[in-house]
């Protein structure tokens, strides 16, 4: 079995190959762009909802310190069940955690897209490489046990 990409034999084949490689680059770039735009939008909604629910937070001066929200005992979702509960209650912090999830998933999706792209390019070695990376990422989420 041939492990590496078959080198193009004619000019026509080389052109098709280059177009495929360009497609890979544009698709990966697009996945990253969408992930970034979506997470920013969710973060902004989350912040707005949080400040709307807690008018005391939204003052530019006052006695309320942000430290009550950033101490080790602060309450915020850090498991999937906690996240669903928070979202069901319409809490801003839950929406922000959802945005963080989208942000974390974006690089993982980019790896998944690369698996497809490399197999379309008929490049077994790089396809195996990306499948391995994807598998390790999925494993890491299971090991974390969130």
């Amino acid at each position, binding site marked *: 079995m041939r492990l590496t990409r078959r080198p193009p034999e004619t000019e026509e084949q080389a052109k098709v190959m280059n177009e495929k490689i360009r497609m890979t680059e544009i698709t990966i770039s697009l996945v990253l762009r969408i992930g*970034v735009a979506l997470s920013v939008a969710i973060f902004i909604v989350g912040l707005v909802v949080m400040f709307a629910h807690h008018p005391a937070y939204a003052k530019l001066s006052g006695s309320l310190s942000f430290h009550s929200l950033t101490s080790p005992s602060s309450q915020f979702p850090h498991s999937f069940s906690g996240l669903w509960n928070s979202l069901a209650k319409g809490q801003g912090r839950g929406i922000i955690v959802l945005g963080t999830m989208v942000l974390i998933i974006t690089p993982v999706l980019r790896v998944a897209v690369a698996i497809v792209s490399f197999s379309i390019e008929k490049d077994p070695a790089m396809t195996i490489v990306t499948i391995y990376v994807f598998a390790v990422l999925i494993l890491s989420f299971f090991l974390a046990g969130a």
Partner: protein
Amino acid sequence: MTPLDFVISLGLISVAAGMLGSLVGLGGGVVIVPVLTLLFHVDIRLAIGASIVSVIATSSGAAAAYVREKMTNLRAGMFLEVATTTGAVTGAYLTTLLPTRFLFLLFGVVLAYSAVATFQRRRAAAPLSVSSDRIANVLELHGEYFDEAEQKEISYKVTGTKLGLFMMYVAGLVSALLGIGSGALKVPAMDLAMHLPMKVSTATSNFMIGVTAAASAGVYFARGQIDPIISAPVAIGVLIGATVGSKVLGKLKSHVIRLIFVVVLIVISLEMLQKGVF
């Protein structure tokens, strides 16, 4: 300081962190962690969680542009991710076994050495035109990019993939163990060991750090280290900064990028040594 003041000021600082991170291929943790702990007196565990968010944001924000402009070496980056993700997963489960102070001291010294070596390579800037590295040849890891500052297409060959892989494994380990410094080892791995051009090294590091950080993000999330009121302004600010920074990289000369990187590396090294000593 009210929560609103905190969100606004942290968001603005994060813009700067994102710009710097996107230029030198680091995640901006070098700015975010000290700002949160020293300036805002936030718990170090939450600061490290924010650093992971900042790394992923820098990576996705900047790589979107770098991949499109062919500044990133996509094949080399994906290949080396094999080592970084493996390192990150092993590292997450070594945390309890190794004394953190020793690790900070060790990597402080390693980074100080990398800074010196990176600085010394400033004259050997010409990219390789031949490579006898078997892995690089078989996987076609060589590449080319258009250098805006030089106004010409630069093609380069890749070498030293085995040493590169080893350094990338260590980079993944460090990222998971200490929560910082993943890009700080990736750029030297590509620049010093594999002889990629400086801009390609930082752009490819940028591309990779998101995946490395994602591999340890699950653990940080489950441990409750990702606090929404910190991560929202950090992510938004960093994403804006990284998008702006990614437009600048091409226009800067390679030796300027190298110098900025060396300075940042020295700062991280000192931060680590300080954490190891006290």
